[in-house]
């Protein structure tokens, strides 16, 4: 959007009718979360996660549709969405790697694992491989400190990583069609 003068006519607001955008399954799952909370907005975080589960990430349009469904301002939901690191506000690859960079992993070989993944996939933190297979992100302590270094790919935790086994894990994943294979 290009605008030279800031006046009301130049600000376009977008609203998306959730009924045209969200599937009935998505709406049902979100309404279930609403039903166990005292206010509609309280289901916002779960709603973002539900949409992400179905669509991989939360696009602007998804966000507007959720705001519409929950009857809350888009900007407020955007504030919520961008606060939490497990909500992806950009498109991500088929597998999202969350490598733990906290202290126990730092002490037990994080740097080597980081360098290995970086050179094996040819991407750094925040990037996605060209084939759309992997996105590479950090994570705080994954609660696997006794078997550090540790990472999470999708919903799967991998522990006791070495430069050798991390490459094997990624190579195996690259062969899979979907996360549930």
């Amino acid at each position, binding site marked *: 959007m290009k605008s030279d003068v800031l006046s009301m006519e130049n600000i376009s607001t977008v609203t998306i009718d959730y009924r045209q955008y969200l599937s009935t399954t998505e709406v049902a799952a979100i309404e279930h979360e609403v039903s*166990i*909370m*005292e*206010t509609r*907005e*309280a*289901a*916002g*975080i*779960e709603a*973002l*996660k539900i949409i992400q589960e179905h669509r991989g990430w939360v696009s602007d349009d998804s966000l507007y549709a959720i705001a519409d469904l929950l009857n809350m301002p888009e900007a407020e939901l955007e*504030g*919520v969405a961008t*606060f*939490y*690191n*497990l*909500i992806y506000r950009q498109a991500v690859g088929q597998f999202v790697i*969350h490598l733990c*960079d*906290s*202290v*126990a992993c*730092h*002490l*037990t070989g994080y740097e080597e694992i980081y360098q290995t993944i970086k050179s094996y996939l040819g991407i750094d933190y925040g990037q996605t491989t060209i084939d759309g297979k992997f996105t590479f992100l950090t*994570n*705080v*302590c*994954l*609660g*696997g*400190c*006794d*078997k*550090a270094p540790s990472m*999470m790919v999708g*919903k799967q*935790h991998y522990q006791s990583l070495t430069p050798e086994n991390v490459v094997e894990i990624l190579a195996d994943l690259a062969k899979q069609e979907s996360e549930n294979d």
Partner: protein
Amino acid sequence: MTELLKRPLTQLVNLESPLSLSQYISEGGYQGASKALHEYSPKQVLDLVSNSGLKGRGGAGFPTGMKWGCVPMFADNDDKAPEFKYLVANADEMEPGTFKDRYLLEGVPHQLVESMIIGSYTMAANRGYIFLRGEYHLAAKRLQQAIDEAYQHNWLGKNIQGTQFSFDLYVHTSAGRYICGEETALINALEGRRAIPRAKPPFPQMSGLFGKPTVVNNVETLSNLPHILKHGAAWFKALSPDSDSGTKIYAACGRVKTPGLWELPMGTTIREILYQHAGGMADGLKLRGLLPGGASTDFLLPEHLDTPMDFDSIAKAGSRLGTGGLIVLDDKSCPVAMVLNLIKFFAQESCGWCTPCRDGTPWAVEVLTRIENGRGRKEDLDSLHNLCDFMWLGKTHCALAPGAVEPLKSALRYFLDDFEQHIDHGCCSYKQSTNQQTKLKGHCHG
């Protein structure tokens, strides 16, 4: 004492396949809840928990009975009694070096469900949430299974086990950020907001979730309840005769021989945990220091090894028991780099509300990065000390910033030589030593 009575929290843990409801019951499960519901009044449970001396395992060590005692109860004044109350299990567990709650959540989910029933009965809470960190996917699945089973068998829902008491329990999975573990930030997160802590007072026990009285307790704290109900306050105290009541799930990570976790009597010494259970340092390494209870506690030194790991003794030694998870620093790892890693964590996880924390933590990262990379200046040490004062207790809305100060300030005190050598020699000697397998302290080449 039988094994079960010595290690009540973890005895029934099965990580491969946790006990189903009927298996859990056949091992004595739900007897604590049954006793509470059928034989005790809420006030009697409260007194029992107060007498047991149970203190919070979430980091601050606040007496649980006292915390619950602040909740306005029906009995006090029927007309003014709030019609809705909440009990929340804090299963956010994001303190680096801490993995004890995960063990309980994945290994014995019914124990937490039973604990929540007892806790909610005591404060007449109508609804409970388990606030679970988003990364614990397996725990989420297992908790939900346990909750579903409990509903099917009338351990949750309306008129539990034929009593007047009704209670609903839900799992809320979080979407990340360490600050969610702070109890008022957690409440904001549950309300669907950004997880910014709240100014206190009012305390959550008076006005918490959706403005209703709310108690937030750590998973390990709550998990003690069924056992206290079953075996009594005297038994609980006797688990650790010379120290705070009960057992504690201690852990060790870093370069030790066998990292892991162990349920031991409260007040077990650091030495016993590190050398007997964690097997001592990994081959070729010496102990340099350790954080006794997670990332936000002060370093202790080898001279502190005989300190009992309980709230008062660790405080006397100059640190905090925190979560009871040792993070061990060896002699071939750079203390400056370790502290930099810790402070980066706090800077990234600051919620940004208070200026000392929002600005102070990244500033400390900048200074520490400079020192670690050999570009440090003499004045930098003064800057770090100033930052420690700037972020200390009472200057921020929550304990994240003081928590960041603890490892930094103690490192400046105990490992000052290392900081000075980085500055004087313009490099980190440990980086050299990992390449060459020998430590060239004070001499950096290249």
